[in-house]
């Protein structure tokens, strides 16, 4: 019975993240527009974009191979599976033991691998520029992510997201400075991985400023719809991870009643709203960096992670 309930929660989460992801992206765009004193597109515009793309023809380059055609499905599938394994409103997900946070990050790495290959497939220079810059950013973001995971595992004794959330909720963690440093490091990594300003501009089509957009330049129709959906899911995933680890209050644990779950969904929506607002404000307040300043940015995230670990060692020794 408990297993059936957990399975239901898992299915509900899979549907929920897929449904919410475009809405979150639309919400961020809307807030950015309002901050710039514009009206902005409607909140449901991303849904309309995906549906429009699904109805269109696919125009395939002559030199594209099966890798180009299969990549969107694999990218979408791995990102959706990763997003389904992050506790958003409940921790009793039946498949959550299949992957801890390291495995979730590696699943996103699989998606990125396939997308980078698709960028190189057609044989134009735009795809190459996107793939090479994307792999550079990924290679610098991974050590920073690992240091954040190390800090969290040092505190919570686990890398399983449900256990970390339970630890943060239950015990008296206190005012840990290392957690603040880890939070800032994780936010910096999340910004880099999701191709937001200041690393990449999600709304640009200029070659000098493209990273993610350059890799998917040749995609059209239903393939592009899948890739856009995957990008929305990835952003939602990172915001959910930050919410689940650092602000876990309100997440329903296994065995509570239906009311608790509904309330937890409401709290999750509030967290998303707050996170989206902060992201939009941050993106509006700062300019995009030169590509060769990105290593400094991610190096700072790595240093923050290291510093958080060192500071934790000091407090735990005393």
């Amino acid at each position, binding site marked *: 019975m408990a297993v059936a309930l957990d399975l239901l929660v898992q299915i509900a989460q899979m549907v929920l993240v897929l449904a919410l992801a475009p809405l979150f992206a639309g919400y961020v765009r809307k807030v950015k527009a309002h901050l710039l004193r514009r009206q902005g597109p409607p909140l449901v515009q991303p849904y309309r974009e995906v549906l429009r793309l699904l109805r269109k023809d696919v125009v395939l380059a002559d030199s594209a191979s099966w890798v180009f055609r299969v990549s969107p499905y694999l990218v979408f599938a791995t990102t959706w599976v990763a997003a389904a394994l992050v506790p958003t409103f409940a921790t009793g997900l039946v498949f959550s033991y299949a992957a801890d946070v390291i495995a979730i990050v590696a699943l996103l790495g699989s998606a990125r691998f396939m997308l980078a290959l698709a960028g190189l497939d057609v044989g134009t220079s735009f795809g190459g520029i996107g793939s090479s810059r994307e792999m550079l950013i990924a290679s610098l973001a991974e050590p920073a992510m690992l240091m954040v995971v190390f800090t969290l595992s040092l505190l919570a004794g686990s890398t399983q997201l449900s256990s970390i959330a339970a630890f943060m909720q239950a015990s008296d963690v*206190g*005012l840990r*400075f290392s957690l603040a440093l880890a939070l800032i490091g994780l936010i910096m990594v999340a910004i880099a991985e999701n191709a937001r300003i200041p690393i990449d501009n999600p709304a640009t089509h200029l070659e000098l400023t493209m990273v993610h957009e350059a890799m998917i330049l040749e995609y059209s129709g239903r393939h592009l719809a899948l890739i856009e959906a995957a990008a929305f899911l990835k952003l939602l995933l990172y915001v959910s991870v930050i919410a689940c680890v650092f602000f876990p209050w309100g997440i329903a644990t296994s065995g509570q009643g239906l009311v608790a779950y509904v309330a937890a969904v409401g709290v999750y929506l509030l967290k998303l709203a707050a996170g989206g607002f902060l992201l939009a404000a941050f993106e509006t307040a700062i300019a995009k960096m030169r590509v060769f300043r990105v290593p400094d940015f991610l*190096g700072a995230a790595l240093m923050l992670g290291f*510093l958080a670990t*060192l500071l934790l060692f*000091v407090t735990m020794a005393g």
Partner: protein
Amino acid sequence: MDRLALDVAHLFAGGLVLVSFMLLYQDRMTGLVNNFALHALVVSLAVAWQAHIQHAPHLYITAAIALGVKAIVIPLALHRIIVQLGIHRTIETVVGIGQTMLAGIGLVALSIIVMLPITAKAGTLAQQDLAFALSVLLLGLLMMISRRNAVSQVIGFMSIENGLILAATGAKGMPLVVEISVAFSILIALIVIGVFLFRIRERFDTVDIHALHEYRGEQP
């Protein structure tokens, strides 16, 4: 020592180390001076908190001196010096910023490895403060040796003094007169350095240390 007191003290001491890293990351002059003001602010907050939990009112005066002199007066003076000297606003580093930060992390690890076993018998608070204070001191020295600009070296020198203040207050029982004399000597040193900077700037049109080497007749 109750948890909240310890956590807040840890917050301020760790924050001081973080701001020292931010000083290393800066490559613009005005940003550097503002960061230094933040450095002094954090140290004054740390000392004020120590005054509160140690019930040592004379430390409030130390905090006030740090706040007033080092967080307000000296940064304002440095801003004026920069404008008057017309120093160019970017700071050249000897090695890349990434390597400097890596070296900084190594220094923090080293000071923790050295300090924690030595102070094992002292209280947790003193242990932390001493380990972090040594880190701040070493980071200040690193800043002095990895920057070519004289103004940034002055700021590195003063951040060392902030680290010493943290160490002294954490160890309980620093007399006020020592603090006042140390603060005054730093102020005098700053005035002398400022005067010299003006003279050097007049003679040689630059305060870049590497350029000055040529005038000594040494190879750069």
